[in-house]
């Protein structure tokens, strides 16, 4: 079975209203889009054949992304450019295939994800820049994490913040942040924002978050 399928990796974006599609709903949506596009996708060979579809790093509901990854297989040798075009014609608003490629890196090589947060220029968000500087310079950043095995645990994520930068654009405050991601250690951006909100007892007004990259240990793009 293995020999007559071609492995494909799609880099796609999820923006606008598509950020309201949950991960589970996204799976269904992608499968239906593939069917509409009449892509010769490979099905699992069990009693209950399903479209083979792998997402190495799920995206939380409410987040946009310009760099999402999914793997699937096709049973015919069709040009990647054609897959991309047919797929895009069948996708709903907000979802877009940016690139189709052969998979190079293994899923286990994922080490980081990068995010850009935008705090709009509204009175409710005043002073956010200073608080962000203060928060991210703390020597220890303890967060509550829920684990299925251990229940609620407290963990220090200071070392999971591999990089950050605070800047302004169009009067809005932005935070670029690079977090541990993947199978070894995975810190979701909501873990950081929740800890920040808790530390200052604040709520954000209209914060938007975009995942901008998934990276490997050596800082190469996960592709």
């Amino acid at each position: 079975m293995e020999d007559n399928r071609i492995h494909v990796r799609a880099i796609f974006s999820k923006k606008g209203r598509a950020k309201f599609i949950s991960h589970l709903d996204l799976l269904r949506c992608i499968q239906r889009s593939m069917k509409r596009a009449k892509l010769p996708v490979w099905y699992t060979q069990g009693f209950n054949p399903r479209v083979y579809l792998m997402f190495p790093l799920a995206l939380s509901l409410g987040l946009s992304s310009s760099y999402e990854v999914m793997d699937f297989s096709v049973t015919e040798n069709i040009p990647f450019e054609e897959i991309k075009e047919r797929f895009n014609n069948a996708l709903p608003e907000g979802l877009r295939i940016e690139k189709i490629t052969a998979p190079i890196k293994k899923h286990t090589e994922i080490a980081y994800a990068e995010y850009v947060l935008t705090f709009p220029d509204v009175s409710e968000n005043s002073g956010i820049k200073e608080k962000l500087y203060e928060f991210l310079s703390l020597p220890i950043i303890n967060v509550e994490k829920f684990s299925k095995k251990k229940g609620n645990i407290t963990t220090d994520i200071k070392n999971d913040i591999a990089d950050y930068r605070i800047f302004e654009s169009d009067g809005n405050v932005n935070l670029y942040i690079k977090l541990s991601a993947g199978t070894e250690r995975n810190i979701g951006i909501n873990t950081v924002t929740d800890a920040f909100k808790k530390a200052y007892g604040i709520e954000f007004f209209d914060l938007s978050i975009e995942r901008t990259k998934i990276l490997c240990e050596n800082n190469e793009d996960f592709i």
Partner: protein
Amino acid sequence: MLQEKIEQLVLNVTKPARYTGGEFGSVIKDKSKVDVRFAFCFPDVYDVGMSHLGMKILYSLKNARENFWCERVFAPWPDFEKVMRENDIPLYGLESFEPIKDFDFIGFTLQYELSYTNVLNMLDLSGVPVLAKDRHELSPIVIAGGPCVCNPEPLADFIDIFVLGEGEELNLELMDLYLEMKKLKASKEEFLTAASKIEGVYVPSFYDVLYNDDGTIKSVTPSHGAPAVIKKRIIKDMDKVFYPKDFVVPFTETVHDRAVVEVLRGCIRGCRFCQAGFIYRPFREKSSETIFEEAKALCESTGYEEVSLSSLSTSDHSDISTMLNTLIDYTENEKVNLSLPSLRIDNFSEELLEKIKKVRKSGLTFAPEAGTQRMRNVINKNVDEEEIMSACKIAFEGGYTTVKLYFMLGLPTETDEDIVGIAETAERIVNLFYSMPNRPRGKHIQISISVATFVPKPFTPFEFEPQDTVSEIERKQHLLLSSIKSRKNISVSWHKVNVSILEAALAKGDRRIGDVIYKAWKKGCIFDSWDEFYNFSKWQESFSDSSLTMEFYANRKLRYDEVFPWDHLDYLVSKEFFIKENKKAKMSETTPNCRLECSACGVSKKTGGACFGG
């Protein structure tokens, strides 16, 4: 902008995708090029409403007209309703994100009585006066259709126009007339007067209802030149009627999330409790070719992994073998699941089961509806026990080990023996299973009995019948439970009894119930069909505040010569036929199905032709 505001707030509620639109297949138009805007409202949450076939048909039908724009609107779940009210977000169309109070039509589909308070709540959320008499402008015109409209009297105070019967032609005629009269700057009353001349249009405010001292209806008198009797609309040719080539494909999971093809309309069976079996007559079917073409087109355009066939009784299609053969070949090839609901057991042949076995399915569902042959004869469910057993036998041989059985409690003439008979039927199926040497090895039989409380409905031979009182139903439920011996193999479930009595009162209610619905809604009743929101005591208070009782509507026996609240509506089947059927029921006499013999229900006489198209 409303859309931005909603998108900011929606992440704080459950299932935000219910409120943000953008689904594949949703129709966006340039509003400057649109003449008539229609808000199609389903008075329940998105997940339920998006499963409804009628809405899909009418949505596509209206949007196929370049100058009409139909949008979808659902009842927001209470968490989002709170957000909407706190942030001054009016009810909006999911396509344009514009307030529906600015639309030309606000149209509701009434699928079940327990959605009525949601209709009021949605009008209120729209910023539109809830009472029709308080809406003076031409737009929005509030209309309603669907099966409950066969007795729409409880909602007469709130709705401007009821549309009776099938909507494919009627909706467009109404919108065309509206456009014409809008250009002439007509008043609301002028439009309603003209609309009332269209067949199938019922303008409740043009009818004056008088009551007798005993609370029954004395007379219903039309004004404004409206017809004394309003006849429902039907589509003549099912192969030519509009059917959508695409559906809106939701992101979030809905109750029925799949492609659906309508197989036939109407029913030949004549089960005496079943409203759908009478109000959708005459029986008309699509040809196997049409069904196949429509299924294929929908699967291709939506990408759905499942397709189902919709009708009251798919196995009554005259060409079912061809239909299933072509569909099974196609779906197997395309890796699409074919789901087949509503299969009657009396023509569940081995050949058919072989075909169905090719299609993945987890369990079997039968609806004997009653536990003894006498009771089944009374309700005209022409299935005998031997047929149930042979169908189960074939199914067990085919590897099935779960059976779902549907029954009703509180049927007219029901005795304790009939109730014990339900348990005995299930026990016999259990015994059958264990007596079979070729039963599935190492497996146990699991039977789930689902018991509904009988609700007498208008336009059925049982419309005259009283519903059992709540205490009597509870007694019968206990009797049934204590009659089951194989507790390990048989499980029983039922709905709350005090829901069924309200359902009966609303189904058979008159215009005075409108005040009760209004009061119940004001007390906070919404989503009454959801157990977690249903509040019986608030409904009881509302009835007594209006000096009415549920019992008058639900538990009273109606006289044959009484004027019913729905008597001025003509659903083609005659009242004489219902009386005749009611009398036959009392004598346990059955009526053959329409294909075997015409029983002169009145439909073919009124439509001027045979029911089977020739």
